[in-house]
């Protein structure tokens, strides 16, 4: 691990700011959200678009957040988040903490315009994308962040086409290309790394973005007890990576000595069970090309 080791499980606040929600057992997103709030505290104003986390947390009259929290229009997480910050600041609050949490579809597809606009304005806000790689709340449909080969209900494993034929959109670098103050990737498999990145985002003066890989037992077809394990394994196989963008520079936080086998990892998830060796080879080739570029151009 790199320098991101200031916070750890022992130092985390034992207070729960997110509880009583109705998320599935083993939900990666709710784990990321719960831990992020332990770092952010209950003073943070939260904006969540229509999606799983909103659907399980705001069902009148049972509210799951101790914080101030608002459901936003689907496309508008970053707009509402920055609107809240602007409103609080104009009302005289010093350094308001306004945080958006959205899934992969809410971030990389329908919400990308408002996210881009908000980063461009340079206002202080934190945006955390909890990426479970499909539209889970509506029933596991393909999003722009669904990886190659994954079966979803709109990219099923058909007789002719085996799951999703597109590559995952690279949100981390799209966000970085805005010249954002701080951006990072993370995974619920490396929670200490994640919470330290949340702390860094909290300390930023301007906009910040964290993209956290969040397995979904219901959507991916895996046991609820292996969510964290899959979140670790995806990094160890090199299919996801822990990285940061700061002061205009990319850096890798972790470089596995040898990648763990991709096939074993994918076969633990029903969404990949159909893919053949040729397709696995394609996934490995894409991974290797990406790592070659990162190792060449990014700080390690």
């Amino acid at each position, binding site marked *: 691990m790199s320098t991101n080791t200031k916070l750890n499980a022992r130092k985390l606040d034992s207070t729960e700011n997110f509880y009583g929600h109705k998320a599935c057992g083993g939900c990666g997103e709710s784990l990321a959200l719960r831990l992020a709030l332990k770092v952010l505290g*209950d*003073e943070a*104003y939260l*904006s969540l678009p229509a999606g799983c986390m*909103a*659907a399980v*947390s*705001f*069902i*009148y*009259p049972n*509210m799951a*957040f*101790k*914080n*101030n*929290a*608002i*459901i*936003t*229009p689907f*496309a*508008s997480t970053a*707009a*509402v*988040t*920055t*609107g*809240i*910050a*602007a*409103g*609080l*600041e*104009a*009302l005289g*609050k010093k350094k308001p903490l*306004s945080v958006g949490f959205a899934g992969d579809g809410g971030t990389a597809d329908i919400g990308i*315009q*408002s996210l*881009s*606009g*908000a980063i*461009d*304005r340079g206002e202080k806000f934190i945006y955390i994308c909890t990426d479970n790689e499909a539209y889970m709340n509506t029933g596991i449909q393909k999003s722009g962040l669904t990886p190659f080969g994954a079966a979803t209900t709109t990219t099923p494993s058909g007789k002719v086409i085996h799951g999703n034929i597109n590559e995952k959109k690279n949100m981390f670098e799209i966000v970085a290309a805005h010249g954002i103050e701080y951006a990072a990737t993370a995974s619920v498999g490396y929670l200490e790394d994640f919470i330290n990145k949340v702390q860094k985002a909290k300390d930023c003066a301007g906009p910040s973005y964290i993209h956290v890989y969040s397995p979904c037992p219901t959507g991916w077809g895996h046991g609820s007890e292996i969510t964290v394990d899959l979140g670790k394994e995806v990094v160890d196989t090199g299919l996801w990576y822990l990285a940061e963008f700061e002061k205009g520079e990319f850096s890798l936080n972790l470089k596995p000595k040898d990648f763990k086998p991709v096939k074993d990892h994918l076969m633990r998830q029903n969404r990949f069970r159909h893919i053949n060796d040729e397709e696995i080879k394609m996934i490995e080739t894409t991974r290797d090309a990406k790592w070659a570029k990162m190792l060449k151009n990014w700080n390690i």
Partner: protein
Amino acid sequence: MSDFAFLSGNEAIAYGVKLSRPHVIAAYPITPQTKAVEKLSSFVQDGELDCKYMHVESEHSAMACSIGSSSVGARTFTATSSQGLLYMSECLPYASGARLPIVMMNANRSIATPWNIYGDQMDSMHVINSGWIQLYVEDAQEALDMVIQSFKLAENHNILTPVMINVDGFVLTHTYEKVEIPLQEEVDNFLPEIQASPHLMSDDNKTSMCISAGNQHYMGFKVKQHRDMFKVFDELKQIDNDFHKAFGRNYGSAVEGYQFEDAEALLITTGSVTGTVRVVVDEMRAEGKKVGVVKLRLLRPFPAGDLVSKISGAKAVGVLDKNISFGYEGTVFTNVNSALFQKGASLKTINFIGGLGGKDITKGNIRQMFQTLQSGEGETVQYSNMGCTL
């Protein structure tokens, strides 16, 4: 002493907003609203208006940012028009359902296709069911004054409903008139700082907003919202009376009539065309014709009782609609007929659809409408000055 200035409708709106001291403005430019947001930007950049101006990337985000800032109790303004209003339309019922007192100027403009930047009221009619209070103003002075009144109305805890001030594109937004600009201290007295409603988010009252409600509760929220809309008539009347005491001007109730008491033929209008109709009424009155005009200042809530009491003495009533609900008739016409039927008044009514895409509605056109009403002949829905044959 207040100042007098030669202002366009857009600039009058900007002065009204400046005097109302909003905390946040989030806006995206669109013709013919641009001059309003340019003027407001200048006020901010010159230090004359202390507020957060958010340069959003779209109208959808203009309304979403407004939802964010209003949800923490900040006084919030935005402005749009036409395609922009439609683009943000997802967020309009969102804001009204959340009971957020946002005030928005809409520069009434046609809707594509065909593309056309000129004024009609197709845009605001498109969102008439969005849960926003819809005001229509006749001139630049009313535009300025109604911004101030609208904040007071929207922020009233009995109302807590966003207000859309509709200003006819070009005819009002780009036409210069002599406008009285009230003094800041007078406006401050009339419109004190916003008192945030307890349902909003704050450090002292942590809460969840824009929640979901299942079938057991949803309808209750919606009927409450609907019923609170009807409180607008009395609250607006009170605000208008207070405005008169403070500034020596006012606009009456939701419905304003001119030469209507003994009129046999009445024309119902919204917005700027009312001025032209007044002139024609004067001319025809001089000829001994009993004609008059009734202006609807509010379309939502719809002042059915007030309207019917002002028109039920006429023999024939025309409704001038600058919109079409395709496959039926003008939207105001439908509302007027419904009001008449509900109140048990039976009158001859004719719908005059005109002014689409900025087509002129001339004095001659209006005279023709009155003549049609007096003769009581012709189709129920007629098209004024279409300019071509089909």
